[in-house]
């Protein structure tokens, strides 16, 4: 029994070692600029960033591959920063909830709340590389402006959550500095968003802890731990990076303008078209 446990442990640890070795380096590139500091000495997160990327440089330089949002000018460049970059464990869903996630996956995400132009939730907004995110930092508040769906949130620094929160798509954020890391406690969520990829639903009991660490001029390490006792079996942590995109501006994105996809989805379902993968 002991031998079997040991063998199982070794297999698991070896697999993990291989997977970790294959996962992308968080820091890439040669020149590392110093972390800019605010007047109060804290790292200044202010700037326009691209989530789910680990490439340095301007938006154009960092998005030259063949992946989503890439120009294809350099076909040898990483194909899709988003798909390669996000490091996550298989999500620890309770069995009944895992079945629901799979159901959505098997329908190719046709039930994505974002397809209806509703605000994408957290941490998903940080895992989308196609649209930039602007951070504006002051000593009392850090404001995040997301181009995707044109949603925003304010992180109050210090204090506690209001006792009368109404369930919200992006919840209520309260931050504190732990050394050079901004730690954000987010609660007060509704249950209408996905956490990360296709079908990753949650309940109103979702509790999110985010850690923003600007490790040099170009890079913020973003770590998010999700807890939801109604849906998950335990904490679920993901890690990704946000890269500085000097010269990029956050623009308007009025999603409801010409959204034809829900109508297409409705017709697909009505006509019983299958979504079998190749």
């Amino acid at each position, binding site marked *: 029994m002991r031998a079997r446990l040991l063998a199982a442990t070794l297999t698991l640890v070896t697999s993990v070692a291989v997977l970790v070795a294959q996962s992308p380096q968080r820091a890439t590139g040669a020149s590392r600029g110093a972390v800019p500091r605010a007047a109060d000495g804290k790292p200044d997160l202010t700037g326009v960033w691209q989530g789910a990327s680990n490439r340095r440089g301007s938006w154009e330089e960092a998005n030259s591959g063949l992946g989503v949002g890439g120009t294809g000018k350099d076909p040898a460049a990483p194909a899709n920063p988003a798909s390669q970059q*996000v490091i996550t464990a298989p999500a620890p869903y309770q069995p009944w909830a895992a079945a629901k996630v799979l159901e959505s996956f098997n329908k190719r995400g046709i039930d994505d709340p974002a397809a209806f132009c509703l605000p994408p939730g957290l941490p998903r907004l940080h895992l989308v590389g196609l649209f930039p995110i602007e951070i504006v930092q002051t000593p009392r508040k850090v404001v995040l402006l997301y181009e995707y769906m044109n949603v925003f949130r304010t992180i109050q620094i210090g204090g506690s959550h209001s006792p009368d929160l109404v369930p919200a798509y992006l919840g209520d954020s309260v931050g504190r500095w732990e050394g050079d890391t901004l730690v954000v406690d987010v609660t007060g969520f509704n249950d209408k968003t996905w956490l990360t990829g296709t079908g990753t639903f949650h309940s109103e009991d979702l509790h999110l802890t985010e850690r923003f660490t600007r490790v040099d001029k170009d890079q913020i390490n973003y770590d998010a731990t999700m807890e939801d006792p109604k849906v998950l079996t335990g904490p679920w942590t993901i890690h990704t990076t946000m890269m500085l995109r000097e010269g990029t501006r956050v623009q308007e994105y009025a999603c409801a303008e010409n959204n034809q996809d829900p109508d297409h*989805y409705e*017709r697909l379902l009505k006509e019983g078209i299958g979504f079998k993968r190749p």
Partner: protein
Amino acid sequence: MNRTVRLLLLAAATVAVATPLRAHHSFGAEYDVNQPVTVSGVVTKIEWTNPHSFVFVDVADGNGSVTNWKFEGYPPNALYRTGWKRDVSMKPGDKITVTGWRARLGGNLAHSREITLPDGNKLFFGPPAGTGDGGNTPAVKVP
């Protein structure tokens, strides 16, 4: 908690899997990677709209019959960042070639990928096939 259990928990918490997370919502549900399509024709209309843009192309079949194709693509912001200039790069009347994938619903609807412009330049008007459909691996283990 003994060392082995702690190690196992740590291992479980750090198993690394690359999960495709793409924007916007599912093109992969609407369009079929197994039905690639390439058409050449004349641009009749461009909708630079959110959440997605559309380009309409009149395609002649050589027998006097013309079909108007509709191609879905990136939102204007993404087009801007991939090198498009609205009302400059492509205008109604331009002769272009579009590659993409046909809609599962059939008809003359497709998801665009690359457009070859009158001067021979090529720009991506849409993302690769399968975007937003969850990729090949679900977020949970398949029982």
